C-alpha cells in the first residue's frame, strides 16, 4: 500500500457496542480519492454499522474519522453530508409519503423571501441528479407509488445531488435488475474518474471484482484485511470473509435432468388453474409436483411477485382456482392458505415480514402458531427448540433467541424469516427473493437447504433476481413477461442465456 498521499477518508479504531453486542471492535481502513473501495463481510459483520458510525447515525465509543486529514465527528447525517459525505443506506430510507422531487432535494432546498422554498431551483437540481443516472422519473409522483427498485434509484439520485467527495453505497444493487445495475456502475465509474472516493457494499462478488479497486474485509466486527483487487482470487477473498475455506455450489448440469424427470413423475401437489386478476396477472396455469422447485423468471415488473401473492392469497383473484393435493383451497385468505400449508416468504421483509419488537424466537414460531390456531399454543420447549435449531442451522448472528429482531442485521433478519416458514412445515413454499441481502456463505447454505427440502418432498416456487440462483436451484422455470407466462424451461435446459433469450425473443 502506498502511503504517500493523505487518504481521502481515514477510519481508525472504531468501536461500537449495542447493549451486549459488540458490533465493531477496532475497525480501520482508508479510502483514497478516485477509488471504489468495497467493504465485505458476512451478514452482521458490521458493514452497515461502520457506515453509520462514519456518517454520524451512531456515535462510536472510540475511534476517529478523518476527511482529507482533518478529523470530523459528525453528530448527525446532516453534518456528514455538509462535510461532503453522501450516503445511500441499506434499507431504502426515504419518505414514501412525499414526492420524488422532495425525496431528492429535501434538506438542501434554497429558500427565498418569507422562507419560501425555491421549487424551481429544486426541480432543476433534481432533474440534474436523475440525469446523472440517465433516469427520467416523474418528479411529482409520490414515492410510495414507485416499485422498490425505482425508490433505490431515487435514493441514489439524492446522494449524488450533493457534490460529495465521498459516496457511500450500502447494498445499492440488492433490488436492481441487470440493466439498472449496469447503469449504476456506469455512474460509479464516472464519479470515480472525477476523483470521488466510493465505499461500496454488496454481497455480489462478481460486482465486487468488477468494480473495486481495493477491498476491506470485516469479520465479526473486526478489521481483517485490505487487499488490492488486481490479482486477487475469489477463493482467497472468501477465505478472508468466512475465516475458512469455501466450497461453491456447482450447477448440477446433466444430473439435473434426472432429478427434474423424477419430480415430473411425482404426484401433483399444487394445481393452479387460470388464476388471474386484472392489472396483476393474466390467467396463470401451474402444476407443481411433490418436491419440485419451480422458478419464476422475468424482468423487474414482469409480474413474478404478483403470481406469488395471488397463489398465497394476499391478493384476491377474480378468476381461477387452486387445488392442493386435489382438494380445492379457498383463494384470497392467507390464514386459510397457511393452514393448508401454502406459504409465502415475501420479498419486502420490513413491511411484510418482521415483527420488529418481538424476539427472534417469537418471530420464528409465529407462522407455526397461527397455523395451529391461537388456542393450541406451541409450547415453550418447542419454541426454544425451534429457535435453537434454526439459529444454529442458518448461523444466525444474534445475541440470543430473546433478542428483538430489529436489533439484527438485515441479512440475519431474512434468515429468521426463512426459519419462520420452515418451522411451520409448509407443503408449498413460495420464496420471493429469499437471498436478497444475504451473504455469500449463507446463500450457498440456503441453496443447499432448498435442495434438501426438495428431497424431503417440499414443493417450492422460487423467485430470484439472480438468474444463476434459479439456474442452480430449479427443476423447472416459467418465464414471465408483461404479466404472462411466455415459456418454460426444464432441467439442464435452464441456463441464464436460455432465459434471457426467451424474454428477448418473444416477439
Amino acid at each position, binding site marked *: 500500500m502506498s502511503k504517500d498521499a493523505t487518504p481521502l477518508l481515514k477510519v481508525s479504531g472504531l468501536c461500537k457496542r449495542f*447493549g*451486549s453486542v459488540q458490533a465493531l471492535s477496532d475497525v480501520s481502513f482508508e479510502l483514497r480519492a478516485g477509488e471504489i473501495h468495497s467493504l465485505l463481510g458476512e451478514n452482521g459483520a458490521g458493514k452497515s454499522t461502520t457506515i453509520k458510525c462514519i456518517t454520524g447515525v451512531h456515535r462510536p465509543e472510540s475511534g476517529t474519522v478523518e476527511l482529507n486529514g482533518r478529523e470530523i465527528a459528525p453528530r448527525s447525517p446532516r453534518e456528514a453530508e455538509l462535510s461532503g459525505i453522501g450516503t445511500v443506506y441499506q434499507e431504502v430510507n426515504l419518505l414514501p409519503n412525499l414526492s420524488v422531487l422532495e425525496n431528492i432535494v429535501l434538506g438542501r432546498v434554497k429558500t427565498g423571501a418569507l422562507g419560501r422554498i425555491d421549487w424551481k431551483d429544486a426541480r432543476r437540481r433534481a432533474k440534474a441528479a436523475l440525469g446523472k443516472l440517465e433516469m427520467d422519473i416523474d418528479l411529482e409522483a409520490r414515492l410510495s407509488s414507485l416499485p422498490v427498485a425505482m425508490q433505490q434509484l431515487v435514493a441514489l439520485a439524492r446522494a449524488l445531488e450533493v457534490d460529495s467527495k465521498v459516496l457511500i453505497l450500502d447494498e445499492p444493487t440488492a433490488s436492481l435488475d441487470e440493466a439498472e445495475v449496469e447503469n449504476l456502475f456506469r455512474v460509479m465509474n464516472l464519479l470515480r474518474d472525477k476523483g470521488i472516493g466510493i465505499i461500496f457494499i454488496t454481497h455480489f462478488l462478481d460486482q465486487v471484482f468488477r468494480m473495486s479497486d481495493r477491498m476491506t474485509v470485516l469479520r465479526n466486527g473486526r478489521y481483517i484485511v485490505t487487499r488490492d483487487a488486481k490479482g486477487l482470487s475469489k477463493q482467497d477473498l472468501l477465505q478472508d470473509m468466512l475465516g475458512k475455506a469455501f466450497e461453491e455450489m456447482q450447477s448440477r448440469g446433466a444430473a439435473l435432468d434426472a432429478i427434474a424427470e423424477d419430480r415430473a413423475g411425482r404426484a401433483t401437489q399444487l394445481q393452479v388453474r387460470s388464476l388471474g386478476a386484472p392489472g396483476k396477472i393474466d390467467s396463470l396455469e401451474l402444476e407443481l409436483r411433490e418436491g419440485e422447485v419451480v422458478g419464476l423468471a422475468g424482468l423487474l415488473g414482469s409480474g413474478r411477485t404478483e403470481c406469488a401473492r395471488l397463489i398465497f392469497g*394476499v391478493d384476491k383473484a377474480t378468476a381461477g382456482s387452486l387445488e392442493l393435493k386435489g382438494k380445492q383451497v379457498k383463494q384470497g385468505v*392467507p*390464514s386459510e*392458505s*397457511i*393452514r393448508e400449508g401454502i406459504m*409465502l416468504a*415475501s420479498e419486502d421483509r420490513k*413491511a*411484510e*415480514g*418482521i*415483527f*420488529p*419488537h*418481538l424476539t427472534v424466537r*417469537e418471530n420464528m414460531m*409465529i*407462522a407455526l*402458531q*397461527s*397455523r*395451529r390456531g*391461537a*388456542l*393450541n*399454543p*406451541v409450547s415453550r420447549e418447542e419454541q426454544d427448540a425451534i429457535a435453537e435449531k434454526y439459529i444454529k442451522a442458518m448461523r444466525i448472528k444474534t445475541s*440470543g433467541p*430473546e433478542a428483538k429482531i430489529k436489533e439484527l442485521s438485515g441479512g440475519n433478519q431474512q434468515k429468521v424469516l426463512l426459519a*419462520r416458514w420452515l418451522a411451520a412445515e409448509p407443503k408449498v413454499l413460495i420464496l420471493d427473493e429469499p437471498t436478497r441481502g444475504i451473504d455469500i456463505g449463507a446463500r450457498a447454505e440456503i441453496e443447499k437447504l432448498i435442495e434438501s427440502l426438495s428431497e424431503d418432498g417440499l414443493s417450492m416456487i422460487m423467485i430470484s433476481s439472480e438468474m444463476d440462483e434459479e439456474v442452480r436451484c430449479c427443476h423447472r422455470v416459467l418465464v414471465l413477461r408483461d404479466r404472462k407466462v411466455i415459456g418454460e424451461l426444464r432441467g439442464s435446459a435452464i441456463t441464464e442465456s436460455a432465459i434471457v433469450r426467451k424474454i428477448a425473443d418473444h416477439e
Partner: protein
Amino acid sequence: MSKAMEATVSKKSLRDNPLVWPLAGLALVVAFNLVTGPEFFSVSVRDGHLYGNLVDIFSQGARVMLLALGMTLVIATGGVDLSVGAVMAIGGALCATLVTQLGYGLYLALPLTLLMAGALGFFNGAMVVAGRIQPIIATLILMVAGRGVALLITDSDVVKIQDPAFLYLGKGYILGVPFSLWLVAAVFTVMALLIRKTALGLLIEAVGDNEHASRFSGIEAGRLKLIVYAVCGALAGMAGVLDAASVSAADPMRVGELKELDAIFAVVIGGTALTGGRFLLFGSILGAILLQALTLTLYNAGVPAAVAPVPKAIVIVGVCLLQSDRFRKQISNIIKIGGKAS
C-alpha cells in the same frame, strides 16, 4: 459461560422490566404519605371487614382497573377505545333498569348487560376493522352517542337500586375484602391465563407490532381486533355496573365521565406502548392503583380540587420520565458524579 450470560440477562431484565416504573411512582406516593400523614396506611377491621385508605384504593380503583384491562388489549393491537366511559354509563343504566324497572333478577340482567356492552365494543371493532376507520374516530362516535343511549334507557332519570344482590356487587365483602377486588382479581386471572396459556397474547402483540406482516403470517387480525374491542366493551359495561352498585344508583349523565383518559393513563403508565405491540396486564393494574392512590392522597392532603390536576400532571410526566432510558442515564450519571465527588 452460560451462567455468566444468565446473570447478565437477569440483571438486565430487572432494569428493563417495565413494571419497575409504575412501582417507583407508587413508592413516591407512599413516601409522600408516610411523611405527611402516616395514618393514611392504617387498616382496621370494622363491621367484620377491612377498613382504611388502602382498602379504598382497591375498591374505588376497581372500575378503572377493569377499564384498563380491556383497554390494554385494545391498545396492544394498535388501537384505542375512547368510548369506555360512555359504555360504562350504558352498562350501569341498562342493568339498573332491567333489575329495578323491569324486575329482572340480577342473574339474568347482568349477563344481558355484559352481552350488550360487548356488542357495543364489537360495533367499535367492526368500524375499525370493516369500516377501516381510525380507532380514535371510530370510538369517538360511540363516545358521543353512548351517553345519549344511556339517557334513553333510563328515560333521562337516575335509577335507584335496592336489589340486595345488585348492591352486593358494590358493597359486599368476602373474607373482609371488598367484592369488587375479588372480581378484578378473577377477571385478571382469567384474562392472564387466556392470554399467556394460549397464543392469543402473542398474536395480539404481533398484530399491534406490524399488522401488515401479521396478515402474511396468517394471523386473522380483523377477528382478533373484534374480540378485543368486544372484551373491552364488556369490561366497561361491568365497570358501569360496579359503579352503579357502589352508589346504589345508575346515573346515565355522569357515570364514567372522563374515565377513558384514566384508563389510557393507567395502561401507558403500566408500561404498554401506545403504539401497540408488547403489553402488560399487570402493569395496567399497577397503573390504576397508582392513579387511585394519587387521587386519595390529594384528597387527604387537602389540595384544592381546582388545583389537583397540577400534581396529577407532575406524576404523569414524572413516571414517563422514569420510563425513559435517556433520563435514567442522566440521573445515574449525576449520581455517579456525586459519588465520585464525595
